[in-house]
């Protein structure tokens, strides 16, 4: 019994990481209907950048993340203004193909620079320290930190969208980009800001992912699928829905891994397909 409680608890904590993966994707899709196929590769790019900072400069992962966040912001802004804005439009093909191309470029660039070896970000005692909760039940400080960070990110994004001027512009551009433009919203700038913020979330997700487990340049697509599944399970429209989707996916995978080590990811995928069949709009859709 305690083993199953443990499985669920670990799954929920893993779900926090998936929620971090998913919120950036959800943000970009929500504001400009852009499905970023390179999303997982961006997470890995951030993880490798974090690792390079930690091993190259000898700084702690926390400092590395603080350095990476403004860089990610600038990168996202430039990416949107330089490439992705040209792909947006009625046709869904250009953004999909361009981000697919980016995914291949990033994967191979990482392979070229870091080789195919798996490695991880060294974070000292944080990785192994744990909090004892009771007989046979303990949670690691690291997964707990990630989970709390995910809650903080969801809160911050929800506040940004709901209570700020820029959030209002985001929502306006999402609802009707032409009407928003007529009201003086500069769409290209707004879209670039959305991608910039999404990339900051990606940087947080990437560094945590790099600390939590081993990373290899070709892992990106798997991370994209987890992020996507969390978004669809949760339903579009709110970051809390996406967060819940991440937690459900984490629990499903955790249960799968407990049943058979070869089944973890598969059970996660099957949970996603089951939700899709039963509730195509996700479990917590905000609209309608």
């Amino acid at each position, binding site marked *: 019994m305690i083993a199953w409680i443990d499985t669920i608890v670990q799954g929920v904590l893993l779900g926090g990481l998936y929620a971090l993966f998913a919120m950036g994707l959800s943000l970009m899709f929500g504001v400009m*209907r852009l*499905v970023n196929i390179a999303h997982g590769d961006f997470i890995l790019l951030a993880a490798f950048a974090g690792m390079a900072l930690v091993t190259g400069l000898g700084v702690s992962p926390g400092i590395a993340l603080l350095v990476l966040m403004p860089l990610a912001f600038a990168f996202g802004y430039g990416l949107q203004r330089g490439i992705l804005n*040209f792909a947006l439009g009625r046709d869904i093909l250009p953004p*999909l193909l361009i981000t*697919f191309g980016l995914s*291949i*470029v990033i994967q*191979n660039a990482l392979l*070229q620079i870091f080789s195919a070896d798996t490695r991880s970000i060294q974070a000292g005692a944080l990785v192994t320290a744990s909090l004892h909760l009771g007989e046979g039940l303990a949670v690691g400080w690291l997964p707990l930190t990630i989970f709390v960070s995910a809650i903080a990110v969801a809160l911050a994004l929800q506040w940004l969208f709901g209570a700020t001027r820029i959030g209002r512009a985001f929502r306006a551009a999402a609802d009707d980009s032409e009407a928003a433009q007529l009201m003086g919203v500069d769409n290209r700038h707004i879209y670039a800001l959305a991608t910039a913020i999404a990339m900051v979330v990606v940087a947080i997700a990437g560094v945590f992912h790099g600390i939590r487990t081993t990373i290899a340049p070709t892992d990106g697509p798997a991370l994209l699928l987890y992020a996507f*599944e969390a978004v669809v399970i949760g339903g579009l429209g709110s970051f809390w829905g996406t967060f819940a989707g991440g937690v459900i996916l984490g629990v499903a995978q955790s249960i799968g891994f407990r049943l058979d080590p070869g089944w973890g990811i598969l059970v996660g995928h099957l949970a996603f397909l089951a939700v899709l069949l039963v509730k195509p709009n996700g479990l917590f859709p905000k609209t309608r």
Partner: protein
Amino acid sequence: MDATVKPTFNVLRATRASRAGGIIALILFAVLASLPFWADSSWLRLFAEFACFLVLAQMWNLLAGYGGLVSVGQQAFVGLGGYALVVLANHTTLNPFLCLPLAGLIAALLAVPTALVVFRLQGGYFAIGTWVVAEVYRLLFANASFLGGGSGTSLMALRGIPKATRESITFWIALVLAFGSVALVYWLLRSRQGLALTAIRDSEIAAASQGIDVRAVKFLVYVIAALGAGLAGALYFLSNLRISPDAAFGVNWTAYIIFIVVIGGIGTIEGPIVGTVIYFLLREFFGDFGTWYLMTLGLVAIVVMVKFPKGLWGYAMQRLDLRFFPVQRRVQFLEKETS
């Protein structure tokens, strides 16, 4: 109205290029069919691979270029076709070469339940949804221990067949599939369904308002594309003799196909042919550069998509008005006869 009035126009469906193209295709087919009698066996194997990519590119073009179904999960059906071939050939007494069409049919059959799930998603979400399904199939086969699990299994059924015979038959199958896929897409697009499909490509809402059952047409296209991908997968692993989940269900299949179609020109039949030739030339000359080569492919695809969204063939067609596979109807007005 007088029923005997002659119409004052003709509807033209052929062009000069298409008539010439038909003859060239026949000659090419005859020459290629004789290849096993005089060419080196490495050429036969290369052509078999070429045929796989050509079939896949034609099918993906049909899906994405005409049906508006941008799938990044076609590797699901490549893998299913490949595994169906290996299982049927190894575990039944059927002739291994006859298992190939059956493998294609099995892939098409499995496309039906798959469509039920992925058709719940639209646009970009459909794309990633198809990828998830491909991963589900990959993981299922990776967990199937009687098929060798993650390390895969070999096509043992071809043991007794001499190498030359095996390679010749595989080559002829590849030849038929390559020409057949082009002919199938050409025929389909010239048919009633093709007209519906082109209308859907241009505007889904307008097409629906004209009485086209958009969902049914898309479903048909999805199943046909799965059949093609299944046959291509079966052919590839018939030629390769060994299959593993990572090789069969890898997303690289779709990555290369997308590159081929985008470079060649999406939404044309000539485009995937041009694209496949270019892809094989590039691979022949630059394939040894590994990661740099792949990075360049990705960058080229991005640049082409942004600057030349119609691809090389689309660009050429705009300037030359050259159509080897005319699928449109052209109206030719006749001079009024003076009575």
